[in-house]
Each structure stands twice: as C-alpha cells, then as structure tokens.
C-alpha cells in the first residue's frame, strides 16, 4: 500500500464514529421503549440525550454498555457497535465491555468502603494495576482527573459515603475513570447536586472529553447546551432530531424539538 493511500485510510478511520447504533428497538415485555434508533456518537465529544420523562433516554444509555441485560423483561434488537465491533453479537464479554464503557448514575452510589477502595476496586477487579505502587498511582491520578484529589488526599481511608453529594458524584466519576474506559455514560449526573457542585461536574466533563467519549442524559436544557457538542432529542421512544448542540438550541429542525426545548410541552 502506498503512503498516500495509507494516510487517507487513517484519516477515514479517525472520522469513524466511536459508537454506531442502527435500527435499535428495545422492548420491556410487550411494550416498545425505543423505536428504530439510528445514532452515531463521535469520539472525544460530549453527546447529550434530552427528552421528556419516559421517552427512553436511560434505556438507550443502558443499551450502550448492556446494562439492560440484567433486566428480565428487556429485549434489545438491532446493532450497536463500539469501534466497529458489534457489542451484542460478537461474543464480547459484557464485563469487559463495561470496563470499556463506564457509567455514572443519577444518585451518587459510592460503595460502603473507603475512598481509596472505591477507586481501587475496578483496577483490582480487572487486574489493571500490578502492585501496590501502581494501584496507588492509579487512585491518585483518577482522583486528580475527577478534580477531587485536593479535597480528599488526607482522608483516603475514610468512607466514601461520608463525602458531600457533589464530592460523592466526583468520586463515582473517579471510580469510572480508574479502569481507563473509552466511553463514560452519565445518567442525570447532576440532578441531585447544588449549582456549585453541578458547575464543577460540568467543568470536569469538559476536561474529560479530551480523553473520553461521553454520553450524558440530562433534564436541564442549559446543561445540555453548556456541556455537549451534539444533542439528541428523544420523544416517545423515537429519536426525533440529532445535531450540533449550537444549532439545535438556536434553530431546531423539528417542531417537536422546538416545542420541548422552549418549554411548550414536556
């Protein structure tokens, strides 16, 4: 292969979306929660999922790391690929998938363990850090990247549950980062936080974007507008519109998007 050809190929590979969803249908028993979703999620960008309650945002998010597998009645159809690999039909181990695609939930949910062990848990489980020194370094760097290190470095042995809500959420983000994932899914990560804690998380999300691909569900239009590059609007199980966040919040294409983001229905 000549050099020119190689370069164009490399370029094309770089432009390839990190995650591709094609014709994704999700059912809980008889009722359909997602209808033929088609969505590309670009690497190193923040994609915000917005839409009224019950429209299927969390369901879609959970498809990306197969968290729906544990829900008895839930059935997922269609194709979701992570870097071109079909995450449902390629024999990929869901546990390994979840190491590559981490998740942060609405309510901060630190383990009832020390701050240190909260972070060390994942790397130990996946055998990422070999030896005490390396593990310590991983804990510190994860806490630093989550912007929590300065606040907790003197009390790594105290329980994670003793931190404030905002600190707990950053702890959960640090825990997600510790296993070095490629994608971080966040389901309303700030809904239990005050404005200052929220601002810190938003700042953090913006920094994390450099190294991770982030998909965030939020009910705050302003938050979606502030943190994301792409926004996807879901309504009644359909993906109505997806596009550049700037564009979507100034001139959305679809009337339903406009109605929702301007507070005319919800």
């Amino acid at each position, binding site marked *: 292969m000549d050099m020119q050809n190689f370069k164009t190929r490399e370029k094309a590979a770089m432009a390839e979306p990190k995650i591709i969803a094609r014709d994704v249908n999700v059912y809980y028993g008889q009722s359909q929660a997602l209808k033929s979703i088609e969505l590309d999620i670009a690497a190193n960008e923040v994609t915000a999922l917005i839409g009224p309650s019950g429209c299927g945002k969390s369901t879609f998010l959970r498809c990306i790391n197969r968290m729906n597998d544990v829900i008895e009645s839930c059935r997922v159809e269609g194709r979701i690929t992570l870097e071109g690999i079909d995450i449902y039909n390629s024999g990929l181990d869901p546990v390994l998938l979840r190491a590559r695609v981490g998740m942060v939930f609405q309510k901060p949910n630190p383990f009832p363990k020390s701050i240190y062990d909260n972070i060390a848990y994942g790397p130990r489980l996946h055998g990422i850090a070999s030896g005490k020194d390396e593990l310590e370094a991983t804990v510190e760097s994860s806490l630093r990247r989550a912007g929590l290190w300065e606040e907790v470095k003197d009390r790594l042995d105290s329980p994670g549950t003793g931190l404030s809500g905002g600190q707990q959420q950053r702890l959960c983000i640090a825990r997600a980062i510790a296993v070095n994932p490629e994608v971080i899914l966040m389901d309303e990560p700030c809904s239990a936080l005050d404005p200052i804690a929220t601002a810190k998380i938003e700042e953090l999300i913006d920094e994390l974007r450099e190294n991770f691909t982030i998909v965030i569900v939020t009910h705050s239009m302003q938050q979606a507008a502030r943190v994301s590059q792409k926004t996807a609007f879901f309504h009644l199980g359909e993906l109505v519109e997806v596009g550049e966040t700037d564009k979507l*919040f*100034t001139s959305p294409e679809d009337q339903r998007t406009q109605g929702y983001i301007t507070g005319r*229905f919800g």
Partner: protein
Amino acid sequence: MQNSNDHIVRSFDKELRTIHEIIIRMGGMAENQLAEAVDALVQRDSAKAEMVRAEDAKIDALEEELEAAVVQLIALRQPVANDLRAVISALKISSDLERIGDYAKNIAKRSIAINQMPPQKSVTSIMRMSRLVQEIVKDTLDAFSHSDKDRAIDVWHRDEEVDEMYTSLFRELLTYMMEDPRNIGACTHMLFIAKNIERMGDHATNIAETIYYLSTGHKLEGKRPKGDRTPFQILSAEEDNGEVEI
C-alpha cells in the same frame, strides 16, 4: 405533545407578547413619523415639523422599554430556539426602528429650515420616494406581525426601487443647483432629506432580513439588492444628526 403554541409557564408567553407589541407600536410610530415629517415639508408647516421632533422621544422611550423587557426575559427564562431568536430579533428590529425615527426627526428639522426658503420643485419627487418607503416600512411590519418570511423577502427586494429613486432624485437636484446657484442651500437640504429616506429603506431591509432569520433560523442568502452606488459615496461623510447648517 400539546397542540397549542403556548408555553407551560404562562407568564413567559405574556412577556414575549409584550415585546412583540412594543415592536408593533414602535413600527407604527416610525411609519407615522416619516409621513408627518414629509407632510410638514410638503405643506411648509413648521409647527407640524416641531411636533415630529418632539414625538421622536416617544420612540426612544419605547426602545428603552423593550431593552429592559428583553434583558429581564433573558435573565429569567433563558430562552432557546425560536424564543431566543424572537428576543434577539426584537432587539435588532427596535434599533432599526429607532434609527428610522431619528431620520424622520432629521427630515423635520431640515423642513423647518427649508420653510424659510422659496418653495422647491423637488418636493414632488421626495413625496413619491417617501410614499414608497412608507409602504415598505408598513409591509415590513406586516411581515413581522405575521412572521411571514415570503413577505419579508418581497420587501427586501424592493429596496432596489428606493435606491433607483434616490439616484434619479440626486441627478434632478444637481440640475437645479447648476441652473441657479441660489438654489444650492435648499437643494442640499433636499438632498439630505432624500438620503435620509433612502437610509430608512435600508433599515427596513435590515428588518426584513431579521424577520427572515426569526422565522426560518437561517440567514437570508445572497447579495443585497443595490442600484447605482455613486451618489452614496458622495454623501458618505454626512452625519445624520440634522445639526448641519447649510
């Protein structure tokens, strides 16, 4: 999804309506000011001209009222999408209307000066030009109140007619000045009046562009319609404050 176009928070709609109504009122006043100012010129009625000068303060006051309403709405509601475009457009349109008002005031001032001089032949042409611009301003306001992008495009194209009229009026005035140098003072006032009316047309064109953006979310593409540019260059140094005594 609700069928209605209303916000869940009703006071939001009320605030948007208030802003809309202020624009409509400002527009009506600006249009009227132009008509009155040219009437004062045609009828050589200095008292009327004085009234036009005084009325302008009301348009300025409305603009301030609108600005305050917009600032408050942005602070309280953080508008997005068509709501955001509505408030940003309101700000832009109101400043265009305020400028139109200023030009009317300037015409009134000049007509007071012209009333001290012998009657001018070019008044008829000024009247024709002013009628056209009044119509354009009126259509622009109609386009605004109906968010009618097609009418906005229509108005936008008609600015060309205004420019052509201005060019021919410019030539007409030049001949009068060459005929008899004693005409130069009055003709210069007439020239600036014509220029003011032409500028009003430009502001109406701005408003048409804003309306298009407001209703579509896209900029009106393409070059602005423009006729002969020579007379504009000659007058470009003029300040439109009406204080110039010639």
